[in-house]
């Protein structure tokens, strides 16, 4: 079974965001970057599948700057066999433009896994777009997956329920939290990762149909008020919610 996992380098969740001098991107100075948390679920699922099937290969693919090699190495340390960096200095806020470049690299796999969402751009789109561009099945934001006899069944959470979806391979799935418990790279894995193949391919990425006007910090929430201590403050809260906030 040939399995691909797309991995993205993103700022750590704890990072304080500062706007860069261009007013259109973040100031990366001092920012710690990590493997996108949802992509960890995708990698774990790929590794478990490979182990279950008993043969095959898991390839991690990232699109981005040279620094994304580090992200791929994290995937290799978890147990992925080899990596491909689609190298570009450009970024695009149009997930269709990103999907096109990834799709060009992704033909010929039985299963392609993505994270549900990249925690930087919050698009929740690239995996599904790649599947459409390749003309194959896809199920997004899955919390459960079973594959047997060239077919799959996935469960995805929707508002007030869980959808059960059957699909044929080849396919794309995008991983939600709860799909599995991602492993931590062991020391041995980290050592081995250094020797695994990582191919670097320069690619062209255009902006697609979207241009950044600006990136700003959200408006500060007006300073809140502590209304008091203990249950005696409850009437003050009710009053504030009724007359000031007008939500009751």
């Amino acid at each position, binding site marked *: 079974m040939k399995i691909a996992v797309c991995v993205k380098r993103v700022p750590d969740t704890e990072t304080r965001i500062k706007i860069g001098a261009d007013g259109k991107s*973040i100031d990366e100075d001092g920012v710690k970057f990590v493997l996108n948390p949802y992509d960890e679920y995708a990698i774990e699922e790929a590794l478990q599948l490979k182990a279950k099937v008993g043969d095959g290969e898991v390839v991690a693919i990232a699109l981005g700057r040279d620094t994304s090699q580090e992200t791929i190495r994290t995937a290799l340390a978890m147990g992925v066999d080899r990596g491909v960096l689609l190298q570009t200095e450009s970024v695009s806020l149009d997930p*269709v433009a990103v999907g096109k470049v990834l799709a060009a690299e992704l033909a010929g796999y039985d299963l392609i896994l993505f994270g549900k969402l990249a925690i930087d751009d*919050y698009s929740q789109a690239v995996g599904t777009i790649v599947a459409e561009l390749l003309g194959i099945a896809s199920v997004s934001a899955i919390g459960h997956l079973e594959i047997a006899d060239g077919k799959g069944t996935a469960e995805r959470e929707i508002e007030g329920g869980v959808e059960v979806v059957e699909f044929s391979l080849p396919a794309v799935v995008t991983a939600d*939290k709860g799909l599995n418990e991602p492993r931590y790279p062991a020391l041995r894995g980290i050592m081995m990762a250094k020797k695994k193949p990582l191919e670097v391919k320069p690619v062209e990425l255009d902006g697609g149909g979207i241009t950044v006007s600006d990136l700003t910090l959200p408006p500060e929430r007006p300073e809140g008020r*502590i209304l*008091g201590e203990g249950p005696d403050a409850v009437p003050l809260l009710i009053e504030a919610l009724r007359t000031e906030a007008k*939500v009751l």
Partner: protein
Amino acid sequence: MANVLAVLEQRGGVLKQVALEALTAARQLADASGGGGSVDAFVLGPSGMDVSELGKFGADQIMVGESDELSLYQPDSYAAATVKQVQSGDYGAILMAATAMGKDLGPRVAARLDCPLAADVTAFEAGDRLTVSRPVYSGKAVYRLEITASPCVISVRPNVFQPIENARDAATVKITPPDEEVRSRTIEIKEPGKARLDVTEAPIVVSGGRGLKEPENFNLVEDLADALGNAAVGASRAVVDAGWRSHSDQVGQTGKTVSPQLYVAIGISGAIQHLAGMRTSKVIVAINKDKDAPIFKIADYGIVGDLFEIVPRLTQEIKNLRRA
């Protein structure tokens, strides 16, 4: 702005509340910059749906594709039917709600039409060009993005665009979805035990965290939600990981993003990853015994103290109020 196609969602043949939000957003988009654009509401679902309300909320035309095959969201058929509709009209934008369905359908339609996608949009400005706002980096920053191609696909965050009545004489047109090669098929929706509102859709969300000490104590949260009415129960990751609540209730970076009118955080410290999921709520209330808990930094109103004393009192007073 040119014409807008509003793709609306139903469940069990009944239009969802977010459908009216998406329709309202579509109307605003079509009317922006001088107006003149029309809005076509587009609904796929089982036979016999009642769509008469859509004219009241700004649809100029209501396109309905009915078949029992379309009762559940079917990715391939829904995408094909939407694309066929776009190609048979002259639309500048295809708009839908950023629900589980919209987040799956939007990318499919954009890829098939080879047009840009702006997901989870919270505002737009239509001048010569369309500009949308999208929260990114877990809500810690906001992009304003100019869309330079037409058409484009836009999904709007639930609870942001409140439905506004705008009555029109809308004609209903039956459409026939194309036959589509089906690569995947939704076979059922498994319902969880409790049919409460989903946190992403509810106008009020009451969430509990580790401060509740025991899973059984979530009944305090449930009772408050019941007293408020129209409220969903949310949870922090700490209690989801501990197995007290299901992942579907989790609010935050690795859970759901919510924007209700009122968010009540009970025994939740306010870690940055939790704030990521609820900071765009209109009014935030925090109840926590630690006056330095970070949740108070973004709360509009806070009460410091023991939740086991405060929450029952709050529930009682809300009940009194509702009765009065």
